[in-house]
């Protein structure tokens, strides 16, 4: 039977960083991913990674303050301190591993400005920073000797008497089901963007790990905090990085006005994302857009700068919208991009389930609170990926393997899958259910939301869940049955969507990405707290946790 001290689920930046750390600590480590590691969604990060480098006159406390303010004071300050203090080393480590960061005139690492920060502290590789980091991390994974299960899809956690002891996984290429035993498990399964339609996220980003942990009894925290990014391309909804605004691009309405003057006179286009997205949505609602879009204007930046620093997004505009940003403004709108919420963990990645860890976008430590600053997520994946890997390796020394009957576990899971494959064709398709969910989430748990809209989402989700229970899988074969994988993912997505909607309904204030038109202001007295959703009898049950405040005091948030 396959057995490991540490099993990392997910091979994006967080997962590979965790696995490399665990291996370096001497643990027998494996990593499992439903796609080849370099196909992971961390690829898509364009703009960069934040770090306050002391030799540049920057200060981690400054970075922490910007992050806390960006989070609308919902981030836990102890966790934010850990992240910002570790950032410099994490960045230099990545450079030593071989990342080809852009440089300044002296040959040192160069920076660009990013939203919500008073200093330029975003380090970057053109506008494909995520890909550059991910491929280098994969190089290190090869070097590390970590066992890698590529294109294996985790279908369930193996739990006996409340103890998690492994996973079942489908080897996609053969269709064979396996059980893998592990002393500790680290979830690094990424976000859940595909619950929304459209979204900037890749098709594989379906919240699997969040759902698996939730169903095993872990708490999902601050799930209402869904980030809508200000600049997603009209039509396909693909992202055009904040790097464009960092390099000086403007946002304009249909008459050419830079409307951010009204909303954030100091930071303008570089206010934090929730602020800019709301401004755009307000303008669009007021009829100042065209076809539901406002414009990202890069024409004054010049072709040379765009070629050096924004070439990949220029290409996207040309390929997907037929617009060359060198010559004309690009139509954009707010689009679902990131989830601040996730599996609740402490600063070592430990969840409330013994031996189970989480890091990266699927986790919530919480460093992003109500709104994540651009370029803080890559940092989050690397810092907390490494910490989880270290801690899990150490912990696995004193944890025994959970005894379970491999045959039994696998045949139980096979039975469940067979049942799905044998469902009669009732004419429905998982694609339609996913689309229904995505459109309802984007429509009702939107940039602006209220009691009524969120209730509507909850109603829709209930109906979709009933349909899901009957949905047929058309492909009955074993080999590379993506039809089956998508159907299983849809189950995960519906679980996570529930927790988002229920949390959004619960928080009766406006904070960060949660903008309730029926409760338009922040209410520190009643709502300066985390919302935790746990699986209950009939759906998510809500409880609360205090926000950790160390030395940064609450203040009104203006940009």
């Amino acid at each position: 039977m396959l057995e490991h001290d540490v099993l990392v689920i997910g091979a994006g930046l967080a997962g590979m960083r965790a696995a490399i750390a665990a291996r370096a600590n001497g643990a027998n480590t494996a990593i499992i991913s439903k796609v080849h590691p370099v196909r992971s969604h961390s690829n898509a990060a364009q703009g960069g990674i934040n770090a306050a480098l002391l030799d540049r006159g920057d200060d981690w406390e400054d970075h922490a303050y910007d992050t806390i303010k960006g989070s609308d004071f919902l981030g836990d300050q102890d966790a934010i301190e850990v992240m910002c203090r570790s950032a410099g080393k994490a960045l230099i480590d990545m450079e030593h591993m071989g990342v080809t960061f852009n440089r300044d005139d002296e040959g040192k690492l160069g920076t660009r400005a990013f939203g919500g920060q008073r200093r330029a502290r975003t380090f970057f590789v053109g506008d494909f920073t995520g890909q550059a980091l991910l491929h280098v991390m994969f190089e290190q994974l090869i070097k590390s000797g970590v066992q890698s299960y590529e294109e294996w899809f985790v279908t369930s956690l193996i739990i006996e008497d409340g103890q998690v002891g492994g996973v079942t996984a489908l080897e996609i290429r053969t269709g064979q089901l396996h059980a893998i035993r592990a002393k500790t498990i680290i979830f690094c399964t990424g976000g859940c963007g595909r619950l929304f339609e459209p979204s900037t996220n890749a098709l594989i980003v379906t919240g699997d790990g969040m759902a698996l942990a939730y169903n095993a009894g872990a708490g999902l925290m601050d799930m209402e905090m869904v980030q809508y990014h200000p600049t997603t391309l009209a039509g396909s909804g693909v992202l055009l990085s904040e790097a464009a605004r960092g390099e000086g691009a403007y946002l304009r309405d249909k008459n050419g006005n830079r409307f951010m003057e009204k909303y954030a006179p100091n930071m303008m286009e570089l206010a934090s994302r929730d602020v800019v997205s709301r401004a755009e949505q307000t303008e669009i609602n007021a009829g100042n857009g065209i076809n539901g879009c406002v414009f990202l204007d890069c024409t004054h930046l010049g072709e040379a700068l765009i070629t050096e620093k924004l070439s990949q997004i220029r290409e996207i505009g040309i390929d997907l919208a037929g617009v060359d940003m060198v010559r004309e403004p690009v139509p954009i709108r707010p689009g679902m991009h990131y989830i601040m919420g996730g599996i609740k963990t402490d600063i070592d990645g430990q969840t409330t389930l013994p031996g189970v860890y989480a890091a990266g976008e699927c986790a919530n430590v919480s460093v992003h609170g109500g709104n994540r600053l651009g370029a803080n997520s890559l940092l989050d994946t690397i810092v907390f990926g490494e910490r989880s890997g270290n801690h899990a390796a150490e912990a696995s020394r004193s944890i025994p393997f959970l005894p379970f009957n491999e045959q039994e576990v696998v045949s139980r899971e096979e039975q469940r899958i067979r049942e799905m494959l044998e469902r009669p064709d009732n004419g429905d398709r998982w694609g339609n259910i996913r689309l229904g969910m995505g459109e309802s989430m984007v429509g009702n748990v939107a940039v602006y939301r209220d009691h009524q809209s969120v209730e509507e989402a909850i109603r829709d989700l209930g109906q979709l869940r009933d349909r899901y229970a009957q949905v047929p899988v058309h492909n009955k074969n074993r080999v590379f049955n993506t039809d089956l994988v998508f159907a299983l993912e849809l189950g995960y997505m519906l679980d996570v969507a529930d927790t988002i909607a229920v949390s959004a309904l619960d928080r009766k204030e406006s904070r960060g990405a949660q903008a309730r038109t029926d409760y338009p202001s922040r209410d520190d007295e009643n709502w300066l707290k985390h919302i935790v959703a746990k699986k209950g009898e009939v759906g998510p049950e809500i409880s609360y946790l205090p926000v950790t405040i160390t030395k940064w005091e609450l203040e009104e948030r203006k940009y």
Partner: protein
Amino acid sequence: MDVTVKIKRFDPEADHPESYWQEYAVALPDNATVLDALIKIREEQDGTLTLRCSCRSAICGSCAMRINGHAALACKTALSRVLDGDNAVVVEPAGVMPVVKDLTVNFDPFWDKIRAVEPYLQPQGAEPAGEYIASNESMLHLSGVTACIMCGACVSDCTVLEVDPTFLGPAALAKAYRFTADPRDGNREGVSRERLHQLSEPTGIWDCTRCNECVEACPKGVAPMDRIMALREQAVNAGFTRNNGARHTSAFTESVGHSGRLDELMLPIKSVGGITNVGAMLSYAPVGWRALTHGKMPPLRHKNVENVENVRRLFRKLEPDLYGPEIGKSSPFG
């Protein structure tokens, strides 16, 4: 627009697994990509259609396949650019790699070759406390190579791999160049001697035939063949000239630079290190015999072209360092 997508399919679980063609009619917005069409077919018409895709924005490298006979990313290919007169497009799995199912191919050999070039930075000496100091130009140059998303389009259309599966191939060699050209890799001067030595062996840099297919197939402008040529130059500069590839190039240039035409008799002999390489000489015997008996034997006495001095002037102009006043002494590249 209404389009017809003609897809080459393969089901390994069929009673008699064989490729076959299937056509689908789909209606799509005018700016749709080939991937949009395939996803629509998969979600709405035929759940058995199998392909890899994820990011939809040419960054994850999942969706390389042959579109109208040439490797491309489905998510980066606008349908309007590839439809024929009947609004149809032909989609097949990527080449060279074995098909698993429909449009998915087995990448194992691809990754084995990436692994073979030891794809991680190997600096000699202690790491600096902060970052390595390096020029922005050097990093931008490397970023042009690290822009590779490992989609396999270049491998799919590589004409050498088609006939010689042992060739490291364009993706792995471009990956290798990413390290040899990195000022942080290798010795203090940034020369990755060990890598260049390895890459000069058979199956490496000298096996490329410069057909340019990989340059055309690459969706990210990495231009693998150009990187292979740069590797050759690095290898020769580092002194790795005692191999057939380097000798071939050197003999080729020497001959043309000296006489204005190729000395077809001497080229193969010089390529293997000269007449004393008895094994190689013997292996030429059958070809030589056939050439002789078919009247294809190159002239024994190699003659200069007319006005050979013009050719020599050209060489001097192109490579003044190498050709100086004397011609054909050193070993530059063709």
